[in-house]
């Protein structure tokens, strides 16, 4: 175990906390569709108040899941997949990945045929 308060643990904790919320996952989905959006652009695509989006974005920034670039006075938000890759690296063995990919593809394929759209329940 790492000592309490170690920054690396805080980063990992923050990533899981940030991901454990449907609204924040929707925000990440939105950034996955188009990275580098401003707060205004994000609000236009989401059914959330500006305050809620701001709050969620800050949490995602703290978790390093969203990277920020300032262009003049404009704050652009980018999906930063590095921590998610680290999570998968930590628990998904490189030899398992092949089989998991195959299972994932199978699930996606079957659900697509059935509903003609991705399963929202995940």
């Amino acid at each position, binding site marked *: 175990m790492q000592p309490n308060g170690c920054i690396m643990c805080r980063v990992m904790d923050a990533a899981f906390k940030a991901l454990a919320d449907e609204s924040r996952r929707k925000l990440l989905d939105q950034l996955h569709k188009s990275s580098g959006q401003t707060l205004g652009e994000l609000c236009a695509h989401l059914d959330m108040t500006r305050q809620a989006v701001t709050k969620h974005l800050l949490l995602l920034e703290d978790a390093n899941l969203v990277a920020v*670039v300032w262009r*003049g006075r404009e704050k652009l938000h980018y999906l930063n*997949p590095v921590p998610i890759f680290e999570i998968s690296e930590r628990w998904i063995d490189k030899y398992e990945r092949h089989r998991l990919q195959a299972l994932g593809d199978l699930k996606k394929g079957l659900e697509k045929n059935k509903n003609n759209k991705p399963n929202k329940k995940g």
Partner: protein
Amino acid sequence: MQKPKLVYTTYIRSTPKDVWAAITKPEFTRQYWGEMTNVGDWKKGSKWEHHNPQGEVWITGKVLESTPPKRLVLSWADPDDLKDKSRVTFEIVAMEDMTCLTVTHGSFKDGSTMVKKVSGGWPRVLSSMKTFLETGKGLNIFCK
């Protein structure tokens, strides 16, 4: 400033000097960047190249800015398609006992095929660099 297309950040328990070395020294890149190497003298205006283990040039470009160990800006192109040029910026900032590395890849030409080629790769490379710097061993980044 044009809006960058891809931005990646990682926090590494290391020093800016070591992060700079990990990016610029072939003996280090080879250990975490899927045996690829970055070759150059990293002086402004110089040419740099990204080689595969056979020494073939995969990416080529110029050093546009170089402030060791803080900031490195490179132009980036496939040698077979030099017109499809883009720009990569490495920003290295010390934070407590860690170093924050931000990689920005942008200035892509319209219709560039490079975005697709690199967007899956950067998170792997950065994650592997982090593991390499923290443990001395990189990840097998080209496994599927």
